[in-house]
Structures are given as C-alpha cells and as structure tokens.
C-alpha cells in the first residue's frame, strides 16, 4: 500500500507493507536512523517521535496509521543550523551518555515545553516516565530540560513540524 505523510516538514510518499511499524518506516525506508528502538512492548520509549506535535511510541504505531499526519524526528530538531534549546540543554547538562534513548527523551521534552514552558522537576519527571535511560539516572536529563526551559524564552521554537522562526 502507499502511505503519504509529512516527516520533518517534507512530504514523503512510499510503498509499504501494511504491517510496517512506523519506527522501521522511519529508519529503514527513510534512512532517518536517529530514531531508535529498544523494546517491543512500548515500555522503553527510545522510539518516541512526535505525531502532530505529540510524543508517540513509533514501535507501537503502524506506518499506515501515521498516513496523513505530521511526523517529527530528532533529525528535524535542528533548524537552519540552530539547535533546539533542548538539544543544547542535553549537551550542557550531560543529559546523555550512550545517546541511545536521547532522541526520544529530547522529543518528549520538546513537546512538554511547548505545552508548559516552565515545568517543575516533578512535571518533567512525570513527562519522561514512559522512557527508560540506563545511563544517566535521569537527574541530568531533568536538568537538561530545565536548562532548555530557562534558555528558550528568547527564541520561538516548536511548531509541530519542527520549523523555528
């Protein structure tokens, strides 16, 4: 079957099997390998992408179901050479070690900050609680997101297709 969607602001149209999972579509078919997978049961959240601006586990979503929607992956976070403050925050605060869960964590953080520009630590922890990081013990991820919140007032970010103005 054919599926059409917008990925990081680009229209894509591809032939797929109906059973293709969105994560495989993104990684194998579009070659956007920044989205990872870490489990099969929607428990780890390394596969999180934004669909219409909301974090979704792409290992538990069919590519077909994303048809007609707007998908954003980590590759769409940097716009015109300008990093998303969330990306910058993760670097500044050592929010990543192996980097495997990082794209999913950052996208969830992006969606969170779009809804709540000044989240408390508790709100941040709740927001990322569907995603497992085995390296950081989470404190530095929380700090990274706080860093982004503190630094993004001066920039306009976070339309659903990742374009910044």
């Amino acid at each position, binding site marked *: 079957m054919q599926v059409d969607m917008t990925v990081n602001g680009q229209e894509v149209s591809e032939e797929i099997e109906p059973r293709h999972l969105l994560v495989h579509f993104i990684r194998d078919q579009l070659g956007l*390998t920044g989205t990872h997978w*870490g489990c099969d049961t929607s428990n780890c959240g390394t596969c999180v992408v934004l669909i219409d601006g909301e974090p979704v586990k792409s290992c538990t979503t069919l590519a077909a179901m994303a048809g007609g929607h707007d998908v954003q992956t980590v590759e769409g976070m940097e716009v015109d050479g300008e990093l998303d403050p969330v990306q910058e925050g993760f670097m500044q605060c050592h929010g990543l070690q*192996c980097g*495997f869960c990082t794209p999913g964590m950052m996208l969830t953080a992006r969606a969170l900050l779009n809804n709540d520009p000044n989240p408390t630590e508790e709100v941040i922890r709740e927001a990322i609680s569907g995603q497992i990081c*085995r390296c950081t013990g989470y404190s530095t991820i929380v700090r990274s997101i706080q860093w982004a919140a503190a630094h993004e007032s001066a920039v306009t970010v976070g339309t659903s297709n990742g374009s910044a103005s």
Partner: protein
Amino acid sequence: MTATEPQAETDERPIGFGRLLRKEDPRLIRGMGNFVDDIQLPGMLHLAILRSPMAHARIVSIDKSAAEAHPKVVAVITGEDLAAQGLAWMPTLSNDVQAVLATDKVRFQHQEVAFVVAEDRYSARDALELIIVDYEWIDPVIDVRKAMDADTPVIRDDLDDKTDNHIFDWETGDAAETEAIFASADVVVSEEIIYPRVHPAPMETCGCVADVERVSGQLTLWSTTQAPHAHRTVYALVAGLPEHKIRVIAPDIGGGFGNKVPIYPGYVCAIVASLVIGKPVKWMEDRTENLVSTGFARDYVMQGEIAATKEGKILAVRTNVLADHGAFNGVAAPVKYPAGFFGVFTGSYDLEAAYCKMQAVYTNKAPGGVAYACSFRITEAVYLVERIVDCLAYELDMDPAELRLKNFIQPDQFPYETKTGWVYDSGDYEPAMRKAMEMAGYDELRREQAEKREKGELMGIGLAFFTEAVGAGPRKDMDILGLGMADGCELRIHPTGKAVVRLSVKTQGQGHETTFAQIVAEEIGIPPEDIEVIHGDTDNTPFGLGTYGSRSTPVSGAAAALVTRKVRDKAQIIASGMLEVSVADLEWNKGSFSVKGDPEKSVTIQDIAMKAHGAGDLPDGIEGGLEAQICYNPENLTYPFGAYICVVDIDPGTAVVKVRRFIAVDDCGTQINPMIIEGQVHGGLADGVGMAMMEMISFDEDGNCLGGSLMDYLIPTALETPDWETGHTVTPSPHHPIGAKGIGESATVGSPPAVVNAIVDALKPYGIRHADMPLTPSRVWETMQGNHTPPI
C-alpha cells in the same frame, strides 16, 4: 541567546582536567550517531534466530523445508549444518564451550536452535514460524540448591565423563584461622543473603553486521562489543579465520554494562551466514532475546557470617557461596579468578581473618554471570559485607555508621593487604564517610526517624561503604583466554600540532572521546578540541582487552598518559635543539618548553610538532615525526571507594517504598572530568534502586524465564529515582601515572546495599534484620508479616 552559549559553570574549557562538554554529544543529539542497526550495506540480508521453547529437551528432529520454501528466505541453518563445518560449538570466555546452535539438546529456554537468513527482517521473522522442531522433554534443573543432588539430570552430557552439574569449587582466605576467631568471638551473626539474577539490559540490544568479502576473504564485523580486539582473536580461534583478515568495528554502542563483553551465538551465526552466502548479513536481537539469552549477572546464594567483639570490633567475615552459572560457563573473568574478584568481600574493614568457600554449578538457565557493571563480582562481594555488617549493627544495637567508622582500615595502613591477599593501593575512608553523613544531615535524619517511629511511620536510613578493585589487570596474574589484560595506546602529533590518540578500549557511553582527549591534553598542553580519539576499530587501534570492569581509566587511561609523556620526552629533546640549550635546562609549562630562568625563550608543542616534521636537522639520534606507542601493564589494581546513604519512606498500609534521598560520596582518585564522573555515578545509583527494588530475572519450575520483556523486567524510571546528591574526596592511586582509579561501576556496586539497608532499617520496628532483593511492595509487605521468603 545563541544556542551555543555555554553554561557559566562550563566556562572552564580546561586544557586538561576539569568540566568539559563531551565531544561525542554533537552527533548524538542530532540523531547522527552510528549504531549497529543503523548500518545498511548494499545487498544486506537479515538473520533471525529460532529459539527453544523448553529449558531442557532433546532435539528429535528439525524440519526446515517450509521455511526454506519461503520466497524471501535465502538460507535456513541448523546445528547439524554447523556441526558439519565444525562450528556448532564455540569457546566461552571461561574456557567452557557453548553451543552456537543446539545439536543434541537444548539446555536453557530460548537457546539458539536454528537461524534463517532472508531478504528483509520481517520475512526472516515470518520464516521462523515455519520451522518445525520436535523436542523430547527432559526434567530441567532450575533450583540451584538441587543442582548437585544425586538424582538430578546432567545438563552438560556433551562434556566428556560429566556425571553431575558441578563447574568449580573455589576458596580464598584461611579456613582454620577464621574458624578459630569465630569459635571464640563474643558475637557471631549469620544470614543467608541472596543476590538474585539480574540483567544489564542496555537500551540497545546486541547485534552485528557481518560482511565477508568473497575474493580477499576479509571479514568486517560491525558489532555491539565492548572488547573489539578480544572478540577478533576469539573469532580467529573459533572460526579458523586468519586474524589479519578480520576487522571488528564497534561503532556507537547504546550502553553495555558488561552485556556486550561475551561473544554470543548470534554473532557467530551472522559471520557464518555471510561466509556461506557471500553477502552482508545483519542480526539484531529483539528485547526478549536480549533478556532471556545474553549475559545475565549475579545469581549468588551467599551464607554470610561475621564475628565481632561485643564492643563492635569486627574480627572476621566468612561466607559460603552457591553460584548459578546457567547452562554454559560463560563468565567473563580473568582465568585465575573463576569467581571474579569476589575475594574483596572483606570490604573496607581491618579484619583478623576471612574465608570464602564457593561452589559453582550448571542449571538450565541462560549463561553469563559477570555483567551489569559488577566489577568482576565485586558487586556481590560488597553487597554481602555491607549487608552482614548491618546485621551485626542490628544485633549489637549499634548505629551502623558508628560500627563502620570503628572498623575502617586506617590511612596509615595503606597499601593494605587483606586477609584474602588483595593489596588496596590507597584509601582514606573516614573523611568520605563523614562527608556523606554531613551532606545527609545524618544525626538530624536519625532524630526524624525516631520521631516518626513514635507515630508508627516507617522511615529508613541505609548506609553502605564500599571498596572496589578495578583496572584488571597485571599480566602476571590476569588473562582472559590467554590474552593478557594490558592495553595499548598510540599518539601522533601532526605537523600543525593537532593530535590523534588511538585506544584499545571502547566507549559505550562513558565518554572516552572526551576523557582521553583530556588526559592527553593534560600531559602535552594541546587543547582537547585539537585531539581526536580513535577507538572501536581493530584495524585502526592498538591491541587491548576492552572496556569493562571499570578498566578504561585505570589501564588505558594510564596508557594514554604514559604514551603522551613518551612523546613529550621526545618533544623536549627537539625543543632543546630548537632553543640550543641542554634538555636539563628546559622546563615544561603545559604546552611549551622554556629555558629555565629565561621564560621568554620558549617553544610551544605546536612549534615542536612542526619542527619534528619539518626541514632542518633534528638533534642527534632523533627521528622525524612526533608519535609513540606503548602497551601499559598495570602493576596493581586500583581501589576506588565511597560512602553512600539512602533515605526511604515506606507506606505502612501498602508497603510501597519511596526513595526520598540518595547521597553518594565517591573517591575515584584524581578526577579527569567531574561532569562525566557525576554522570557515571548517577547511572549506577539508578541501577542500585532497580536491583534493590524491582529488577530480577526469575524462572518458573519448568525453567520458563519470567523476565522476558521490559513489562516483566522492570527498570526504574524518573519517578522511582530521586535527585541524586553527590560529593567526592580525592585519594590518588599511588601507582597510576595520573592517580586516577576508575569510576564506571562504583555506584552500581555501592548502591544496592545502601537501598536494602535503608528498607530493612525502616522495618526495624517489625524486628526485621534482613530481607532479600528485589524489595517489591509485595515482598516488603510479606516481610512485615514475618513471611519473608528468599527470591530463589
């Protein structure tokens, strides 16, 4: 703001040690990392493995005809097919053998039975459903305590003359001396302490892409390995491939924690498939395969005993351990140390005697045993001693902090030889302990606890003080499969003064690309951003045994410092020529040599590099170029230590435990990058909460693995983990060139006993002295009812 504006505290920009943002991060935060499953090669095929549904069964027949008929299937291979090539078995890292694909029988649930190679990963998975295997049930050996019973089935009947499930007996310390002390001690406390089977579960599962080039016979293997060089040698030994025709590349690795040290059947299957088919073949585990078949950790049943005076002077520790190694002995540990470094179970205390007796057995469970940041079984050793010391404190009705402070090895006793023969390099324990207590507000916490107890509220304060032995190791004592545990390092300074350093170790997230650039920078004065760190590629790095057991900084870090000093020595000679003074008249100012007493007369390392490669004569006997290579053989292990305090609250009605605070004071000797050190500690602390409270790979009586998904094998999230409070003291290692000791596993080692001690402390009003992990709400509640049962 601009997106690149650095945080105030990151302004250090050190040329050497200090907080420095990581060189790895710019690619990883853009999704531009290169992990094994990201690799796509033209014509690449996909491999999937059929696994046994039973824990112990004879294979009667395998019918693969339907799978072979699948239009997208290229090959279906069984154990019999591999046996025809002599490839059905492979050596483990403990000189045992393990089936690549089962031939005679399966010995654990989910053991590898056959594999399919197909054009895409979905078809490979589909074809597994088409293979029909007829199994004949054999009673499995699941209860480790019954593995040596007389009527128990023999799991390893593949081994010559094997008539039981025994693997090894091992002992350390002096049995008679220890017994004498126990016999006359005022107080003896004994407790069965179990460290259940857990799993490292890195977020990236294991996998590889094997590509055998048909004409040259060159194998390139992109693989999730923590030890690319060691793996290459083992492949040469197992597959008979010439070592110079094997290139192992470990690209970005999504966490290891020891899970990516062993060689798994899947890697060998992919290599064989590529060899046979002549195309690149990718194999990636799914999460279940990772949890049920790859290197687990722990699984020790420990009878712990401690002897002391009634005043609380600890005299001796003794333990009897039953070790479950699963169906194949796949432990990765130096050959002379079948129980890893469990011998450090004497802890941080000045004892008069110690003795350990251990028996290791086969069971019908997945192989493994040394993983999950365990520092070669120090995790188990520290858990044992820190738990039994708390049991003693309970019996003496003594504050556990006071008991520990009273028994520490004193600073003037270092180097300190333990009663089991380990020589602790350096230590100053009391300041670390006092610092942790001060950060925690220990006395105030105890007051709060007393008030809460009056009101029936359950609050617990748990302490742990650990000493690790890391940085394996001296080649006179330590090897794996005959390979010495030394590490190579190579440094080249380019003509313009930029540098490239090549390591034998490999990061899985620890930040080697940053830390090692800082070590070189510290020694030669070139800014870290001008130093490229190459690692994880056997064709482009010197030989060494890889990253595990917290050995990168203690071994390779030393190698990096020493190779840089070697280059600097040469630079000094060249500088003496440039400045026309003798070598002895030069002094080093981190980045330049100047003439003593005349600082205006100086040359930078960059000037020297150009000179070394440039025109004109060099001093007599000096070749052009500015580079060196060494192989560092550590003279001893390093012994990091730390003091941890955990505070928990337990809801008396539901037995739900909340970790309120966790204070960790670590001493890893000289600190290279405090930011990275803190990160390493944080990660290990989360592991400790996980193991203490939720993680366990368990089995039912038929040997079905009950921890086969992240729904069943629970890992802490941001909601179970507190905001970690960390601090440090610095006691350099005397024998390490920069005094660094390693930090990778400290927190994973030290935190489980702190959490368990806190929970048990909270339950003191119930008369509880011990409870085994994992302390889930149900297990805590049962303990409160006096119905505590061991987890295995």
